[in-house]
């Protein structure tokens, strides 16, 4: 894993896209890629510049780890689209990731607010 290439340049904090995708699927249930991207931007209320294409390598990665699974389906506008759902391992993983994120935020916060 030493020479993992950096993700395409994005303003999404490194490593948080997975968490966002998992959380979105947890909240919304079954969604296609466009729906996931739309939902993330909606929540961010324009504060996040998401390169929507980067969502697909992330989805592939999560699927390989067994956290989500996908199936072809038909969209509201009658298009063939691939729908993603959270698996039970994915659900457990989400809890782990949430905790990790909370810890990271807590550490950074403590650093920032530490008395000199």
């Amino acid at each position, binding site marked *: *894993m030493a020479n*993992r*290439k950096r*993700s*395409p*340049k*994005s303003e999404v904090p490194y490593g948080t896209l997975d968490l966002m995708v998992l959380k979105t699927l947890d909240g919304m249930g079954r969604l*296609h*890629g*466009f729906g996931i*991207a739309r939902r993330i931007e909606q929540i961010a209320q324009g504060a996040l510049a998401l*390169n*929507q*294409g*980067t969502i*697909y*390598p992330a989805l*592939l*990665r999560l*699927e*390989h*780890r*067994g956290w989500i699974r996908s199936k072809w389906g038909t*969209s509201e*506008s009658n*298009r*063939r*689209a*691939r729908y993603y759902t959270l698996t039970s391992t994915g659900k457990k993983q989400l809890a782990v990731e949430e905790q990790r994120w909370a810890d990271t935020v807590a550490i950074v916060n403590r650093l920032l607010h530490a008395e000199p």
Partner: protein
Amino acid sequence: MTTLRTLAARVVAAILRRRIVARVQEEIETHRSMLVSSMMREGMSRAQAELAATREMGDADAVQEAVHEQLSVPALDSVWADLRYAFRVLRRGPAFAVMAIGIMALGIGLNTGIFTVLNTVLLGGIRAPGSDELVAVSQIVNGMPDRIDKGRRVERFSTEEYRTYRAEASTLSGLFGYSRVYSATLSGDLAQDLSGRLVTCAYFDVLQQPPLLGRSFVAADCEAGAEPVLLLDYDLWVTAFGADPGVLNRTITLNRARLTVIGVAPPDVFEPDLQALDYFAPISAAPLLRPDQDHFSNGDVGWLNLVGRHDPGVSIEQIATEFRVIAARIDETRANRLTSIMVAPATSMSGTQSASELLAALSVAMTPSLLVLLIVCANMAGLMLTRATTRSAEIALRISLGASRWRVVRQLLTEAVVLAVAGGLLGSVLAFWAVDWLVAVLSSSFPGISLPLDLSPDRGALAFALVLSVLTGVLCGLAPSMSITRADLNVGAKQTPRGDIPAETGRLRAVLLGLQVAVCVVLVITASVFVRGLVQARSADFGFDYENVLVATIDYRSFGYDANRAESLQRRLRDSVLQLPGVESAAQVWREPLSDRGGMISVRPGTADVPTYRWAWRNWVSPDYFSVIGTPLVRGRTFRESELADNSGVAIVTNETARRLWPGQDAIGQRLVTRFGSEGERSLVVIGVVRDAQLRAIGEADRYFVYLPVDDTVRTQLSTIIRSDAGTGELSARIRQIVDGFDADLAVRVRPLEANIAHLQGLSSFATGLATSLGGLALAIASLGRFGVVSYTVTCRKREIGIRVALGASISDVLRLILARTLQPVAIGAAVGVGVAAAASRLVSGVDVRIGVTGLDPVSIGGAVLLILTVALGAALWPARQGLRVDPAVTLRHE
């Protein structure tokens, strides 16, 4: 766990790479167009929306790259390095590589060969041009209680049904049907029993196998009352007619019917279910060959298996759908009738349709060769372990330098797989070469089976060999490499290869040795059981005198004879034969000794308080039978002429039967109760006891055997047996004359009783040959491996041994020390092997094998265990002694 999962998913993804890339591409495209339309809904023009969407999606190349990275397997790059290293290591020790590849080649080659035969013969498609377009159609008809052919798992089609499907099925370009095997007796100079099938007239056309000579059937041949014709099978044409082209338009007599030969089938013609055929006749010939059961015109009889040919591009599902529609229309003609239709690719065994039976046959045939492969695996694992131990210094070094354990295991596994694949390739070459020989042996051992003339290696067999090789490699390499990398690194780095062997690998080695011994014991016991059977088949006293006895058989029923007519012919035949010079005696019997057919009945002693029935063989005989066959009466008398009628109520039993049913009593005058399905219970009086004989199988006298006087129920199935010292040929000719004089249409078949024994002995030889080759092969491989391992161990322990000898230990003390390590696993392995063999023999003991295989006995077990112990100790002792010849002083100084 997640890492493994991810790796597995990545390997799969790497294989499916192109499909996944295409899938993601499609998802991104859809995403883009969704973005565009949502922006256009918000009021942008198409051009603006397209531009904005491209911006929103981000850098397309970077996304592509990320997807590709996700799909690559990081390990794949280093596999190449592992392979190169493995080749280098193996080149450095060519002796080891040659030995390993040789052993692997034997194990994998054996399995590939047997698999090739089974795969093409049992599961392969029909061997005809464009056979992938052939489908077998079968049905199950419900709600028709009167339909004949019930009780089969898959029913056949009636003539009418066949015609309906043939006329209406548009998804098929052709459809033909074939019957079960029709036995018929050929009359005249060439008199013999023939096996053939009745086929619909498109048979040769749909198969695209035109006759070698003459014409194939035309539609008119299959109409009721058509001029009777037939095609000869190629083999019959050559053997019986001397390949004479003049046979065309000749008339031959089968049963009573005269049929004109219109052609000769090609040598490789499709013969269903691998049953060798002598003739093909059109379905309209059914009433001629069997006047008593006209399947051709009876609409309630299912008797045809259907095979169709479809055009390329038509799917099996389409064919099945169309057939179901037609079946529904047929169902409407009868109340309650409900037909299910099944369509599947046609195979050479489609007619039997019993997948579970095929699977059972496959597994029985594959089990011994897979056991040999197991020995090969255990052996290779032992050798790998031995070698890895010599390399433990190198391995310890690599691990201490930071190589992960997984990395080292992978390296060792790669070596094992390289060896296995090389062995597998060599073995497959040997196998494909040996398959022709195997088929030739099979064909000559089982004359009734029709095997394809050539079996060329196919993709299935190659894939099987490759998968088996890789599996074998992993299996051989995994245990030793795990074990060796677990061993204590410090000890390894400091001491081996000179020091002692780590306990860990020592235990694994013992398990591997025990496993080989156990499998060897199973195979050798099996072989010795067969050998004992063969010896008995060659030398045993069967309890009857089979020399100078002829059996004359007439299929009375096929000629429309009733019991009365059959009886008068039998009487005439017997009286006339007895007049002939050299003839001593003649009698009638239902089934002659060691016939391949027979019947069983339940019996119990009439006196028993609690009725317990046992299965007994039964036969019907005339009074002179026992003197003709040379089985003397021990007590009592034989039947009287007056008792040859139904319900005479007398029976004769064998000595063993009497002993078992009435222990310690005189059997004469006892009541014997028999029960047979429809006949119900009958009470008989025992009037005679005859000597025991091996009447059903060679190798063991039958336990329960009951003789009844011939009566009208079996009259039309009786054979005449004749004891005579006149030559077989002359006597057969005389018998034919006598039968001709009675009824010129009748065909009689005459053969020596010895033929039955020769047939069983042939079967026994084949089974014994197979079992002993496999047992011998297993033993050879196992002892070879043992030899190598002990040689190595002795080399390893030279220093320890040198010290012991220097301190005054005798050579025999040291040998005992080394042998102790061999003896324990060998003893445990042998015990396990005997247990498994015993359990297995209980499983197969219910099978009627008829070749003197009577299950386990102390001689077989003892002999096998003794042989294996000897070989195992020998394989250990010899290299040990060789190793000890060295002067201890030299060994110690060398250190």
